[in-house]
């Protein structure tokens, strides 16, 4: 049978990939390179095309146009069973009529490998479920089934392991534990993992590189820190964590800084962190993460005259909602180190932050892009 797993290795290239369902383009001209051995996450809300992309890589959907290759091997139209790619399905899709051992051995047997015992025993030991080899899938808990689904895929040593929302069905505590375990397994076996998820925290915890997808396209790609600290679009700024976005107008530049007028206040943005395209009326959106703002310590960037409308205590921090003189509500997270404990609802405060934390985005964009999707609802 096909022993593609051994022969094909290398980076995964997606080139101008398109998948259209009638008039709807689920995946719209997507190009990216996933380096061999990396833990890559495709992150986006439901319907953004991430699962369709994954299914095209697995061979379960045929692209409308474009190319998929691993190393130098074109696999765009290869049958799913003829490509060195294995998938961990969302609901695990274990074979209910086969024992755990036979589930894990399935791929090896199909590839004509006679002596499967050693490989299967080894991978079951890796996921710490060797003692369940003779059970049937229904006799296992959700977390155990999840690990068997991973074992069943990695035992084949594929060039690429695809994970389709693999932790979606688990409760929060188990999900955290599995995140760490999956990351560990990836390091242990050294395979390329492509992980599809709508959970930004999950993506940030596990992946080396994240591609944020929206409406069939990649909004931004980079390391978790890069995406969080320097979001280049409003969608990314809102989908990954929270952002305060305030409308402003570019007044001019001085040295490596940009001077922006925000409702009468002068705000400084490093030119390198200006991701806005030039437009005629010079409008931009000034962005600042809530935890970067200080209510107590004056800094170079300050917006005054805010009134505290809501205070919620969440343990490590306290979250303030502050209504600005122009009506907009901004969020501020203060660490609970005693500094802000005297603040009360109705107090008038000034918000300050260091210029290097500020970023500037396209002023014509919709301020709410990426906020209306609640990742936990999907």
């Amino acid at each position, binding site marked *: 049978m096909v022993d593609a797993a051994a022969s094909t290795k290398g980076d995964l290239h997606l080139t101008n990939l398109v998948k259209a369902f009638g008039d709807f383009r689920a995946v719209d001209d997507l190009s990216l390179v996933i380096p061999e051995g990396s833990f890559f996450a495709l992150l986006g809300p439901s319907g953004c095309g991430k699962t369709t992309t994954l299914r095209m890589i697995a061979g379960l959907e045929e692209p409308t146009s474009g190319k998929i290759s691993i190393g130098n091997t074109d696999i765009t139209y290869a049958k799913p*069973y003829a490509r060195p790619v*294995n*998938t961990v*399905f969302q609901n695990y899709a274990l074979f209910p*009529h086969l024992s755990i051992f036979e589930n894990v051995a399935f791929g090896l047997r199909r*590839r004509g490998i006679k002596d499967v015992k050693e490989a299967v025993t080894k991978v079951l030991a890796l996921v710490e479920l060797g003692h369940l080899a003779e059970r049937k899938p229904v006799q296992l808990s959700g977390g155990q089934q999840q690990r068997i689904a991973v074992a069943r895929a990695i035992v084949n040593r594929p060039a690429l392991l695809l994970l389709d929302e693999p932790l979606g069905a688990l409760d929060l505590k188990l999900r955290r534990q599995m995140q760490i375990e999956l990351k560990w397994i990836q390091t242990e076996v050294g395979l390329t993992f492509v992980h599809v998820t709508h959970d930004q925290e999950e993506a940030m915890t596990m992946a080396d590189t994240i591609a944020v997808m929206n409406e069939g396209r990649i909004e931004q790609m980079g390391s978790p820190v890069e995406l969080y600290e320097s979001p280049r679009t409003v969608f990314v700024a809102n989908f990954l964590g929270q952002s305060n976005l305030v409308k402003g107008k570019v007044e001019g530049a001085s040295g490596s800084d940009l001077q922006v007028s925000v409702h009468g206040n002068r705000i400084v943005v490093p030119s390198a962190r200006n991701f806005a395209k030039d437009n005629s009326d010079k409008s931009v959106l000034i962005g600042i993460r809530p935890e970067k703002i200080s209510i107590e310590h004056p800094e170079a960037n300050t917006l005054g005259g805010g009134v505290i409308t809501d205070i919620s205590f969440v343990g490590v921090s306290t979250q303030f909602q502050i209504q600005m003189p122009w009506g907009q509500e901004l969020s501020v997270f203060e660490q609970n180190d005693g500094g802000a404990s005297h603040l009360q609802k109705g107090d008038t405060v000034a918000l300050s932050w260091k210029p290097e934390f500020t970023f500037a985005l396209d002023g014509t964009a919709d301020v709410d892009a990426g906020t209306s999707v609640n990742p936990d609802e999907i």
Partner: protein
Amino acid sequence: MAFVAAISKRSSTVRGIKRPSTPYLLLIPGLSWLAMFFIFPLFTLASTSTQTAPEGADTGTYVQTFRLANYIDAFVASREQFLRSIIYALIATLLALAISYPLAYAIAFKSGKWKNLLLVLVVAPFFTSFLLRTIAWKQILGNEGPVVTVLRTLHVLGPQSGLTASAFAVVTGMTYNFLPFMTLPLYASLERIDPRTLEAASDLYANGLTTFRKVTFPLSLPGVVAGTLLTFIPAAGDYINATLLGNPKTKMIGNVIESRFFEIVDYPTAAALSFMLMAAILILVMAYVRRAGTDELV
């Protein structure tokens, strides 16, 4: 819920039992029905099967003599029809399986928005009576019918030969009549298969044929067992197809029982044959179910 709880609470206090008695109350109608129309007739049948006609009595008058040899006599007299019934039923079952499996598979996995319509069409023949359908089948296979005309044109059949009044007609008639009994359980078990397990199989290096052999078919086994039983059991005891579509050489055990009962008025032999048919089916079915190991399936 509250209503049921109230009833069970009251009845258990009346009888002084702590356990809720509702489940047992609900069993009563079914059990009494079975007792009246199944258990009691079974005993009557058993009693009839060992009776003999007294010397010089009128036709149809029998007295209990516990003559077990009735069974041997009955079997010896209709061994041939017995065997034929089993063979015909087996062939019809296998044919129905061969026709129904692809049909049920297509409805379950490939029919899309036509699924409900196709299911209605499978059941549609039941809106006509069994008898009418069998007579219609006779028309279809008749010398003026489409099948014979086509086969004669293709020179598969000679100009003088036909298809009716033959073993072929009986077996195809049974296949046709019991097809829904095969299709529906097959469909039910195929439809329950999570398409993702099939995707998983192809993801794990199984091509279409291997996926079918290793995943689809094993997962549909409960449907195969149910369908074959629902076809084989009534087919083995059927006599309408043999009556309407057969000839004297295609008589089945059902025909023998019918004629013993209504024409010859030989109640003991008819009863003994009925019992033997029941026993034969029971033994075959038990061996089959054990072989298929259905209780191990999910």
